[in-house]
């Protein structure tokens, strides 16, 4: 029996050596879910981006991982308050027509340690290299304020950690606040080696309202008059019902 197996192995060995070895992909990644559902009880959600690499992560001159996620674009305007006769009012403003509503970047190291600036700029890796083109006032203070405020409300996240286990498995948790926008979210997982991106994988995620929240929002958008009349009737009915339920006279 053993002899037979050995013979088979001997026969098979050269054949295996000749056939092209099935290439192990240098990087595989996935999302824990492909839809985030906003229900009536939604308080925010988090998504796990995970995957594995072919070579060891984090070893000296080993591989590094960068994960970046974009939400749909959301035009923003930043206004500066000015004091006029003792009152604070909105003064000059700058509009940012093409900024992501959500942006998160995670990495085994901060992106500026892993990649040269031109590469980061091309891949939009890191908040400081995001192309925030402004119309209106061009002062850099507006850009700084936008970065500040968007990070403050957790819509733009930077320096999120990537956990590595067993040297080759990686994962990062990206949290959406409850004010997250609906739409398509794109995730890019990058494998960095020697200050170059050697492999990348794109993943997609959809944030959508479901259940009664979705129905209310769609009626309000598509049939605003019907919605307005229903709001009036519902509020009046609730008030009338209340005056019966809580009658105290």
């Amino acid at each position, binding site marked *: 029996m053993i002899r037979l197996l050995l013979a088979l192995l001997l026969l098979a060995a050269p054949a295996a050596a000749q056939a092209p070895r099935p290439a192990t992909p240098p990087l595989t990644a996935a999302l824990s879910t492909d839809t985030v559902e906003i229900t009536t009880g939604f308080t925010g959600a988090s998504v796990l981006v995970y995957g594995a690499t072919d070579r060891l992560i984090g070893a000296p001159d080993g591989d590094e991982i960068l994960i970046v996620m974009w939400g749909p674009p959301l035009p923003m305007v930043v206004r500066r308050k000015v004091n006029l006769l003792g009152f*604070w009012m909105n003064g000059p403003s700058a509009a940012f027509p093409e900024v992501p509503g959500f942006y998160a970047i995670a990495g085994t190291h901060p992106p500026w340690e892993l990649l040269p600036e031109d590469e980061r700029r091309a891949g939009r890796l890191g908040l400081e290299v995001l192309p925030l083109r402004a119309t209106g006032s061009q002062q850099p203070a507006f850009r700084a304020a936008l970065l500040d405020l968007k990070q403050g409300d957790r819509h733009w996240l930077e320096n999120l950690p990537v956990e590595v286990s067993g040297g080759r498995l990686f994962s990062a948790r990206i949290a959406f606040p409850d004010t997250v926008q609906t739409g398509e979210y794109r995730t890019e997982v990058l494998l960095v080696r020697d200050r170059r991106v050697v492999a990348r994988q794109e993943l997609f995620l959809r944030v959508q309202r479901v259940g009664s929240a979705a129905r209310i929002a769609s009626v309000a958008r598509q049939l*605003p008059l019907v919605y*307005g009349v229903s709001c009036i009737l519902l*509020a009046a009915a609730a008030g009338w019902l209340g*005056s019966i339920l809580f009658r105290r006279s």
Partner: protein
Amino acid sequence: MQVYLPIAEMSVDALWLLGIGFGVGWLSGLFGVGGGFLLTPVLILIGIPSPVAVASGANQTLGASVSGLIAQWRRDNVDARMGLVLLTGGFVGSALGVQLFALLRKLGQVDLAVALFYVVVLGTVGLLMVRESVRSIWRRRRGHAPVRLHEHTWLHGLPFKLRFRKSRLYISVLPPLMVGFGIGILSAVMGVGGGFMLVPAMIYLLGMPTSVVIGTSLFQVVFVAANVTLLQAWQVGSVDIVLTLLLLAGGVAGAQFGAAMGTRLRGEETRALLGMLVLTVAAGLFWQLVRRPDSLYVVGPLP
């Protein structure tokens, strides 16, 4: 318990909203005001975007006032004829007020204009009410005979006189029309029903007896708030029905308690309390305007 608001696109604590609704509803029943002047600033304070706060506040005011109106109607405290005259002026005024609001928006100064409107109107109304009610409480304590129901001024010399039986008035329709018109403008700009302005205007300008003032103002507030709700839902799309209904659930309970309590309070005391409340809100908003903001920059979606 967190609940997601589909139009505001955020989640808030439902218990908070119920509590706010109850407090505002209580005031609504007690004073005969919709409570919008209090509700809208509070909603903005807890982080609801201002357009949603204004629109849903008007919607809530409508519901809360319906319940107050029913309570008052049952006590036969509504002068429907006066209410209709006020309402005619109110619809014209609010239609013009919406145009004014659009103009301010174009100029980019809606926030400032609304806050200034609030401070000036609430401050004036509050001061007048406190002064008058303190004076009449003082007069009563000193045992003087009550003054005449109302002073006769040039307002009473105007044509188109009409008899308002419940209000025991025989006056021209022009003053109530003007009052309704002015409050229509203000309520469109400030996003409130306008009861807190209407109550003193009815007492001091028209000379209506306090007993019918509250019910009649609720009558006007219900329809003006309905108008604002419809316009906001239709043109801005910022009425959040989930927010409204949560506020109302607390509000309808509060309104009944308030209305029951209001019948036990004397008119002067009620007016003094309402005046002080109005002044407090005005002072708070004034402070918001003059204090150095935490952040010199604000970010918002591009209109």
